[in-house]
């Protein structure tokens, strides 16, 4: 699986946006008994996301947007798009307060890098308890550092072939320190026991929804608030 371009977090400046699973249904219309039956034929749906009104207000933002448009190449190249869902992720509770992020971690001599930055670390750590097959919709996961799962949380798995894939938890039941969760969409690839689950910064391999999704029109040749749409991308099997 080749490396894909990652959507820069410095461009996660959208005013609105969301992730949804696009479903395809067919319906034969109303039956003689008055029922409207419907059939889904999409196998679970594919992710689509729109980042609305991304605020580009500096020269760096504008040039970064243009460079990314080049690399996305009109929708034929994959882009790993992260999602920021910190308000809803299962933050662990420490001293009665939820922990959303860790402070930068210094070297073992308590010094930082020349620019003052340190090492980053995820707050939530969890892994798959038992292996699951391709297209499974149930998973067991073992939390190492995590708040309570309630359903509605997002996480990602970095699969060996299909890369980063996003999943959403439907139901979560805790028993004996292990969560049994139901997920959508079905697993894009089989997972082995011990596979790490990314809750802090979930992301998904996508592509531009259309060739002109990243068109940029600058106000006063300086600022812009473009929107961009992505759909899920699949590597050849």
């Amino acid at each position, binding site marked *: 699986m080749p490396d894909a371009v990652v959507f820069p977090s410095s461009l996660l400046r959208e005013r609105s946006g969301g992730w949804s699973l696009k479903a395809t249904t067919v319906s034969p219309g109303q039956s003689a008994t008055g029922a409207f*039956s*419907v*059939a*889904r034929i999409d*196998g679970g749906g*594919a992710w689509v996301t729109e980042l609305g009104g991304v605020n580009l207000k500096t020269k760096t933002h504008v040039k970064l947007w243009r460079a990314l448009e080049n690399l996305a190449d009109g929708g034929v190249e994959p882009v790993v798009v992260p999602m920021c869902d910190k308000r809803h992720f299962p933050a662990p509770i420490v001293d009665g307060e939820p922990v959303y992020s860790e402070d930068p971690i210094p070297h073992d001599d308590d010094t930082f890098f020349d620019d003052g930055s340190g090492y980053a670390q995820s707050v939530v750590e969890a892994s798959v308890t038992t292996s699951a097959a391709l*297209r499974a*919709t149930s998973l067991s996961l073992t939390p190492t550092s995590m708040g309570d799962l309630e359903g509605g949380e997002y996480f990602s798995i970095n699969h060996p072939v299909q890369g980063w894939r996003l999943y959403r938890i439907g139901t979560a039941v805790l028993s004996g320190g292990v969560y049994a969760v139901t997920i959508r969409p079905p697993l894009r690839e089989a997972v082995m026991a011990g596979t790490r689950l990314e809750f802090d910064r979930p992301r998904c391999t996508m592509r531009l929804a259309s060739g002109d999704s990243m068109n940029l029109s600058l106000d006063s040749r300086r600022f812009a608030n473009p929107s961009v749409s992505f759909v899920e991308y699949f590597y050849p*099997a």
Partner: protein
Amino acid sequence: MELTSAELSALDADAQRIGAFFRLATDPIVRLWLGVGPINPGVNALDLTGQTYRGLGELLNLPEFQHLLNGQAERVEFSLSGVSDEVLALASAESNNVQGKACDVGIGIFDSDWQLLGAVKWMWRGYADYLSITRSPAQTPDGQTVQTVALSVGSLMTGRRRRAFSYFTDQDQQARSPGDLFFERTPIYSDNSKTWPRF
């Protein structure tokens, strides 16, 4: 085609989850389905070992089809993605790689957890004829060009009234099935007649 009781219950519900599968017996075999992502539907009448079907965008639609009854044999067209490497390679290959190859369409029924309740049910078989590529150019400068590859498939009865270009001679039979001696003696019968049956 047998449906299990679980499949029948799923089909009885107001909302069903159905997967449509397409299999073209070229070399290598093309396996596609209308759902998202890859799927391994397990052993079925055509795939004796589990094989993976590719999804999302490869097969754009399945046409309506019907079995021949009292008249016109049908010819249907399957629209395939026009940008996939696999489909474009198929379209640009020699026509005899596609022509006459069995093309099967089947369905699979899923439960509420998107798990298949049984094997794929193969419902219709046709024989591929030719691939055509159509391009709809953009109507405006900022419009999009749409490229689609269509596979024309006939049923067993398609062209049944068309005169065949081969005969029941030994030469034609060797071309069809080398080593088969079934029509070796047909020239013997050209000048005499046999009465059959004799009671």
